[in-house]
């Protein structure tokens, strides 16, 4: 006899997520269903508006990761307008986006995920807590508590650093068609560099060792929470010379993980235009009317009582296949990470990626020209057009598509990282990555399912993003 466990709410995630799992008599997860439980209906906000409004409005999908939305929106609009920006603008956008990534990854590890492994201080909001499988000594826990507080400061500093070129964070003000309205000066470049002087050592000497410490004490989590062996990255952080810090590509493993496929770079393929065109979204189990469609083309109208529906998240699929996205996908596809697919691999890849981005920021900062070339005035907006842009948010692949006519948006479409990772079952009843990753997890105490938390948090779900949007 299996028994159903409901986890509602899943806390320490952005937004509203709940989970149902069926577990066997021995406490092993047999099946899982992940539900996004909040819907805003961004489509009705975007329609009929000036396409440039998307730069500001789509950021409000998520205050945790607004920057990639702003960037993808402005680049989709620029493509529709036929506008190209300067190399300086690209670097400025990278610097703001990189600052956001560093801030966000620190928040994720220390403030969202860590409490799944370490007890916090004996006071709210750290109490009550799940009281199972805590392996660290009180002395260790005290050190982690210190780092929790220092990391609050560090993530705040990363946001201040980003604001030097963003105007403010969260919600970037300076990304406009034509570039970035905040120009670099000797002063703000030097100040940005001083922030990096503090952040890079923290990432290298505290954050990465802390993740490794957790991994050493919970080593079985290298075998837990793998999810589907298919990874997707849209690529991010262009260098202005045709390259990107993270390559766009897909990884389709034949084995269970990149480890099993070691030495098999043949499993990484570049992302093609045909791949992007083959992205569709199923709404069979989502609270939307209509059936399957091209990404976002069908099923826009909310349908609260739809039979079989259990989530506001849609199920994006590439060529009908389930993909997981995020730092691990990026790092594997770019050849920077050669571990497996698991809870700990996700946490580690994220920490290493933070270092990679922070170090690259130094280079971008050094490449800035103080010549006011970060913004070139755009003098005309075609009355109609369409465009799209791809990038990588902290949690994975992000795409925006815009269509407008008569100066007004007629269609806006977004596919976010957590839509991939937290997706419900699709038309073929294939569960989403988180749902797959939970199967087989062994739960010690059904009333305190901390093991489920570890798997879910390794994906760092962002539900505001996952349930967004958009479609005509």
């Amino acid at each position, binding site marked *: 006899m299996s028994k159903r466990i409901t*986890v*509602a*709410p899943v*806390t*320490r995630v*952005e*937004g*509203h997520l*709940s989970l149902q799992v069926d577990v066997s008599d021995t406490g092993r997860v047999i099946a899982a269903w992940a539900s996004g*439980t*909040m819907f*805003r209906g961004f489509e*009705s*906000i975007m*329609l009929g*508006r*000036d396409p*440039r*409004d998307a730069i*500001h*409005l789509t950021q*409000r999908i*998520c*205050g*945790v990761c607004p920057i990639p939305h702003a960037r993808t929106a402005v680049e989709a609009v620029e493509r529709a307008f036929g506008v190209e920006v300067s190399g300086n603008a690209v670097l400025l956008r990278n610097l703001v986006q990189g600052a956001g990534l560093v801030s966000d990854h620190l928040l994720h590890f220390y*403030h969202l995920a860590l*409490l799944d492994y370490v007890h916090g201080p004996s*006071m*709210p*909001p750290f*109490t*009550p*807590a*799940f009281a199972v499988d805590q392996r660290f000594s009180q002395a260790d826990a005290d050190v982690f508590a210190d780092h929790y*507080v220092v990391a*609050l*400061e560090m993530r*705040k500093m990363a*946001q*201040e650093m980003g*604001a030097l070129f*963003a*105007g*403010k*964070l*969260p*919600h970037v*003000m*300076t990304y406009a068609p034509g570039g970035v*309205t905040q120009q670099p000066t000797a002063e703000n470049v030097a100040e940005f560099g001083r922030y990096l002087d503090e952040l890079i050592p923290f990432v290298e000497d505290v954050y990465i060792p802390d993740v490794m410490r957790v991994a050493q004490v919970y080593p079985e989590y290298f075998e837990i929470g793998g999810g589907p062996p298919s990874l997707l990255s849209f690529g991010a952080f262009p260098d202005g010379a045709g390259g990107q810090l993270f390559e766009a590509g897909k990884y389709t493993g034949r084995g269970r993980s990149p480890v099993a496929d070691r030495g098999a770079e043949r499993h990484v393929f570049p992302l093609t235009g045909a791949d992007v065109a083959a992205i569709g979204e199923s709404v069979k189990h989502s609270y939307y009317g209509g059936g399957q469609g091209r990404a976002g083309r069908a099923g826009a109208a*909310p349908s*609260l009582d739809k039979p079989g529906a259990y989530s506001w998240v849609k199920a994006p699929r590439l060529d009908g296949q389930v993909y997981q996205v995020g730092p691990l996908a990026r790092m594997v596809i770019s050849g920077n990470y050669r571990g497996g697919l698991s809870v700990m691999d996700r946490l580690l890849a994220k920490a290493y990626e933070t270092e990679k981005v922070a170090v690259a920021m130094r280079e971008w900062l050094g490449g800035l020209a103080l010549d006011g070339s970060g*913004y070139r*005035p755009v*003098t005309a907006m075609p009355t109609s057009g369409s465009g799209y842009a791809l990038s990588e948010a902290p949690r994975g692949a992000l795409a925006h598509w815009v269509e407008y006519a008569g*100066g007004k948006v007629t269609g806006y479409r977004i596919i976010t990282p957590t839509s991939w990772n937290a997706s419900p079952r699709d038309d073929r009843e294939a569960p989403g990555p988180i749902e797959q990753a939970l199967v087989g997890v062994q739960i010690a105490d059904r*009333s305190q*399912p901390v093991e489920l*938390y570890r798997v879910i948090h390794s994906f760092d779900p962002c539900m*505001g993003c996952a349930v967004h949007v958009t479609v005509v």
Partner: protein
Amino acid sequence: MFTRRDFLKWTGRSAAALGLSELGLSRLNQALAAESSPPLIWLHGSSCSGCSIAALNAVTPTTFGDLVVNHVSTKYDSLVMAAGAELAIRTMDDAARANQGRFILVVEGGVPTAAGGRYCVIGERGGVPITLLDAVNDLGPRAARVIALGTCASYKGVAGAGANPTGVRPLGDVLAGRLARPVINVPGCPAPPEQLFQVVIGVLAGGAYKLDADGRPATCFPHTVHFTCPRKHLPKATAFGEPGCLLDLGCRGKVTTAMCPRHKWNNGRNWCAAAGHPCIGCAMPDFPVSPLTPTGSYT
């Protein structure tokens, strides 16, 4: 970290700014000295969590860490709390019961009211979904004071823009007539954390807030962005990237009351007009107006 002593020093210095009487100040000191700090319940609604992120960025008058650790007892905040699932909901229920009439309720994000509130479900109690609307209706009248955090909670904001399919209504409207003291609005997209913390501290001290016509603490929003904007005396800019006044590029600074030119953002690092972008009026009841982006020279 900000110590309790620093905090008291700060509150002493800024008592006038907060509008606290001496009596209020002594009550604040008592509140902080009490063994159990005043309880806080923080609900997330139809939001982007940007107001939380902004609160995490604050250092003035104190840090988020200091506030939630040393000055209030954060019983429920689904973004940071250790507990989850039933345990989290039970924690919220127990806290409200044990602190009837004493807890501060912060609501971040819009309150959807269509379809009985089912567009935002925050958890389950005994297998029954709890909507944000249920939680607000239940907890609002039992709280010592209710704070609407951000433009979405204050006025409906982005969550209720356009056709507003989920029926988002301002928190103050949802609770109208059922509170001893009105909801305090702290608008902004995100809400400026300095103002949130000032309001929380003021509430702890028992300060009677004078609210303006938009439900905001009058002292927090004394004048328009344009009034103190350093660009206002410059010749009008005709394109982004020029140093002048941004009025002709769609700036909403003349019709937006907010403290941005003075407080700036991210602890004084920068703010919108300083970074070359016009004000988009994110703290106002009509946000997001259409078109939002400035039209400039190329419409």
